[in-house]
């Protein structure tokens, strides 16, 4: 619960400093999450970014109690990796670290913060509305006894979050780097294949 307002406050403070002169927005596609996966020396790190639309069904700043409850419930779900990924049991991976949070769009906050400096407030308001996308992030670290046995990862993520359609995965393992698109219909990723 506490992490949400904290994250919002830090982005509010940090964004204007970082984004003094840049107006750049990342691509944001509803239904498409991104996942990064790296394995080295028995450590497996997974980072997931999912659009708010896929997780809670809205992307405005949660204001009502129902919205805030929904966000809190989603974070409680995301913080448990078994709701997102299922690793090959033979790899014997043990969770060592997990984090999940919602981060609003930095640019959005940057816009809000600078309204009084801007000469064209109205247009900027529109822009801000267009750009108000929020994303959920989750980060997991596992220690795996047999990382070479990590051959298949499936995604219960799709069962838990009905709006999610696709995950774009980038991975780096001993066999090299690669990319894959995981869809709701075939929610599995094969690794370490030659």
């Amino acid at each position, binding site marked *: 619960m506490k992490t949400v307002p904290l994250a919002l406050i830090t982005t509010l403070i940090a964004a204007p400093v970082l984004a003094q*002169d840049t107006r750049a927005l990342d691509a944001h596609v509803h239904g498409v999450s991104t996942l990064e996966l790296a394995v*080295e020396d028995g*450590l497996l790190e997974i980072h997931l970014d999912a659009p708010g639309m896929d997780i809670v069904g809205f992307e405005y700043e949660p204001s009502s109690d129902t919205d805030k409850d929904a966000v809190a419930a989603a974070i409680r779900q995301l913080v448990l990796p078994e709701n997102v990924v299922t690793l090959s049991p033979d790899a014997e991976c043990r969770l060592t670290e997990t984090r999940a949070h919602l981060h609003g769009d930095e640019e959005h906050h940057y816009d809000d913060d600078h309204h009084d400096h801007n000469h064209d407030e109205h247009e900027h308001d529109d822009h801000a509305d267009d750009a108000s996308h929020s994303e959920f992030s989750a980060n997991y670290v596992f220690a795996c006894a047999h990382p070479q046995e990590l051959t298949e990862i499936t995604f219960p993520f799709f069962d838990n979050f009905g709006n999610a359609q696709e995950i774009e995965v980038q991975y780096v393992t001993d066999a090299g*780097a690669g*990319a894959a698109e995981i869809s709701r219909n075939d929610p599995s990723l094969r690794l370490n294949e030659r």
Partner: protein
Amino acid sequence: MILRLAIGSLRARALTVGMTVLAIALSVALFLGVEKTRTGARASFADTISGTDLIVGARSGSVQLLLYSVFRIGNATNNVTWQSYQDIADRPEVDWIVPISLGDSHRQFRVMGTTPAFFEHYKYRGGRSLSISNSHGLQDLYDAVIGADVAETLGYAVGDPIVVSHGLASFTAHDDQPFRVAGIIAKTGTPVDRTVIVSLEAIEAIHVDWQSGAQIPGQSTPVDVIRNMDLKPTAITAALVGVESRLQIFGLQRWINEYPEEPLLAILPGVALSELWQIVGIAETALLGVSAMVVVTALLGMMAMIFSSLNERRREMAIWRAMGARPTTILGLLVCEAMLMAAIGAILGFALLYVGLMLAQPWVDAAFGIWLPIEAPTAREFWVMACVVGAAAIASLVPAIKAYRLSLADGMMVKI
């Protein structure tokens, strides 16, 4: 017994059978050739770069960045400023970083400016390092190390002078500052073979008297003066980055992609290659589909041949039956003949493929940089052969069943 009869029967009709077998052979060779080129191209691309965790360039597409930085296909949309390069190099995650500067050429070959660290960190084919015939590498400002194909095509040896041209369409030459071939890189099968490598400072040096892409008339700074100048580059084309730990790759990638001072793009070579294959995969499948249809066409041709032969063999069949052969024997004979033709065709197709590979291999390598390995047939290829023979058996069943049904009397009676 049936096999012996089938061989004899095929021999008796050597010409038509020969044509059919040749059609099957060509189609099999085409199919396997397409498959071979496809896997060869993939392997060649994948083998070109290894050990590099990230490639950094101006923000464009990941596939485009990979193609121009590693494969020298296409051009950069923008350069990367030296300051941004320094910022990335100063990141704690960075283990090593090698800048690359492209844009000039020598005859038909690209010139690449880089640092000596390139020879240390550039790896190909699963971690192999470059080996230079003369191990000094780039020592002097005007030293150039050339790839095997450059040396072979232009007949260069160590110590020869070479003149670098400005830009890619070489209408102006940097002839006031000739380079010296300091080393030749052993054949790698990568685009490095077709590259002239000089130092980053040398790229700056040859452009000292140049402004907005043209030499300032009448101005030529003596080489001695240039040697004492500060030749720090202002921009590079791309950089190869090695990361301390694999777990930090994505973090550094995100940092570079969100770098606010300049629109940069960091890609993982393997990921960009996967994206490339996703695009190319459709065309590959189409090509494979077309060549599979050619095999089907050849088998249909064989079926038509057997059908038409049934007419001329009516007498023969009737005599078999009259001599006591059962209808199943006739059926078996025809299927056996078809399988024999397909098997000979497939084997001949293999032979054609290998002859073709031997002839085309050097040319394909030189023209496209794709190394097609000549190696023992894989299990998959044997499977393709088995499929062709199996399909031939099925295809021949149609005329064979017709022959099976034809009555004994049909062949004995003389029709007018």
